[in-house]
């Protein structure tokens, strides 16, 4: 057809050309675009610049992917190191306790202190293992997040990339056809208009997937932060409880054995009184049993045993009690985190 077409003609030609030739040509340009990208050839800078916001979101998505994988690996190492440290602490504690029981030093202050320090280390080792619970929980949540949410977003990203390749391929085709266009040749004009329609179609599809993709990535990042904040709240509570308890028990042990320790000299009996006087002057909580003028090994042993009994009571109390300021918060945080995350991914599983 020669001459300028009427107004109806545009609508006629913008209907997508579904002939086989057109499809093959379209596929050719899509493949060419894909090859150019793979080979790393530079693309039109204006086309690339128009996708800057999308590319930034894709960087964010890749960062989310990478940090989730890193977090999982690190949590595994954390669990291993925690168990290893707990084991070392426990072995050290048992070593001190066994030495205090089986050696001649057992009856001296050194022996009693070794026993007390051994108990505090074993206590710390036992309490430290409580951290495995929130870490295990965090691992499960992040693993589920990675398997479902990230995988799903990745599918959307891949569909968007396919649409982008189609669109850019169509743009390349359009450029070529524009360069060869002779407005007087009707057939060329027809071809130009069909390519134009193809470009519009690809752009519409690409824009829709682009919006989907960007929104999904934003929602993914926000959901992950929300998930982490709930599970880490529990971890934080338990960690602080652990530190508070072990700090209290160790400081009680440290205070009980401050200063010079009384030593019952057998050979140098002259030094016995001096030793007792020095011990009572330098110890932290001196009580009536450390009166330097009183004699007696029994009183000294009794005082040591009293110290140990008091420390044992402190250990038992710490094992029984939770920290009252944190107990409500940690229970609520655990329940809330469990409800939200299992609900979210349960919903996700049923609809996917």
């Amino acid at each position, binding site marked *: 057809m020669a001459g300028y077409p009427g107004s109806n003609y545009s609508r006629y030609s913008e209907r997508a050309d579904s002939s086989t030739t057109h499809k093959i040509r379209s596929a050719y340009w899509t493949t060419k675009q894909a090859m150019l990208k793979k080979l790393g050839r530079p693309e039109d800078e204006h086309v690339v610049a128009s996708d800057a916001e999308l590319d930034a979101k894709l960087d964010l998505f890749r960062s989310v992917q990478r940090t989730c994988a890193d977090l999982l690996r690190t949590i595994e190492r*954390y669990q291993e190191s925690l168990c290893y440290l707990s084991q070392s602490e426990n072995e050290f504690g048992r070593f001190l306790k066994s030495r205090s029981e089986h050696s001649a030093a057992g009856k001296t202050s050194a022996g009693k202190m070794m026993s007390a320090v051994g108990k505090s280390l074993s206590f710390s080792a036992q309490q430290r293992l409580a951290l495995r619970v929130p870490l295990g929980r965090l691992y499960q949540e992040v693993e589920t997040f990675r398997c479902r949410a990230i995988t799903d977003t990745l599918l959307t990203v891949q569909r968007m990339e396919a649409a982008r390749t189609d669109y850019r391929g169509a743009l390349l085709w359009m450029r070529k056809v524009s360069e060869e266009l002779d407005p007087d040749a009707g057939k060329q004009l027809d071809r130009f208009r069909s390519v134009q329609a193809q470009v519009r179609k690809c752009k519409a599809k690409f824009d829709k997937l682009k919006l989907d993709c960007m929104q999904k990535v934003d929602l993914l990042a926000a959901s992950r932060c929300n998930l982490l904040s709930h599970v880490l709240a529990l971890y934080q509570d338990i960690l602080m409880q652990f530190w508070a308890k072990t700090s209290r028990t160790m400081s009680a042990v440290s205070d009980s054995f401050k200063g010079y320790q009384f030593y019952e000299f057998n050979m140098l009996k002259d030094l016995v009184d001096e030793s007792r006087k020095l011990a009572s002057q330098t110890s932290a909580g001196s009580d009536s049993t450390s009166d330097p003028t009183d004699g007696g090994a029994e009183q000294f042993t009794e005082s040591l045993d009293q110290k140990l009994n008091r420390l044992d009571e402190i250990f038992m109390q710490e094992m029984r009690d939770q920290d009252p300021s944190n107990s409500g918060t940690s229970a609520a945080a655990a329940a809330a985190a469990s409800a939200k995350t299992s609900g979210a991914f349960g919903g996700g599983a049923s609809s996917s």
Partner: protein
Amino acid sequence: MNRTAGMFFGLMNQTKSLIKAFYRLSQVQRVFGEILSEVGVKEPQPGLGGVHPVWRDSPQDGGRRPSILLSQSEEMDDEEYSFAALQEPLYRVETGIMSTEAGLPRCAMMCLVKIELLDNKHVVQDTVSQLQCLVQAMSKYHNDCCEVMKGCQNLPNRDDLNKNSFQYESTTPLHEDEDDEDDADEPRSGVREFRDSPQAPFAAWDAAAPAAAAAPAPSA
């Protein structure tokens, strides 16, 4: 004395293992904190990102405390040689090499006195003071960690999503003519469409969003 030497040797070995274990844990905790910091920094929602940087810094100092004990144990180990110096007169006592009978009981007495003094010094006073240092240092370390962590007790995060969360500059609305009127009233129409689309299987994440934090999830 041999038993005491064995005890100090054992103390040294145990302390070395403890230091290695502490160091290993603190390295992992540092990496853990760095990952969480990166998550916080890259989070596009401004309220959600601020929580995590503190985590990296709290557990750094743990390795130093047992190393103090190790160096002190090694000093005590150096003094083991002073025990060895006592072995000689004891050996002489046992095998009766001493020439004069008058010198023998005096020498034995001197040995026993030296042993008693060393026992008091090393076994009792030094052991107690080194262990006391260790326990005090560990107590202080745990206390300091607790104080640092108290400074960032703002979890779980209760900030809502930004109102412009899902508005982008480079995307055009899908149906411009129809949606122009709606967009003014529903700035989050894009999100609604996304939520309702079959491609959003985690539409249920909205239950986890801070805005819906108060309502318990039905499948819990």
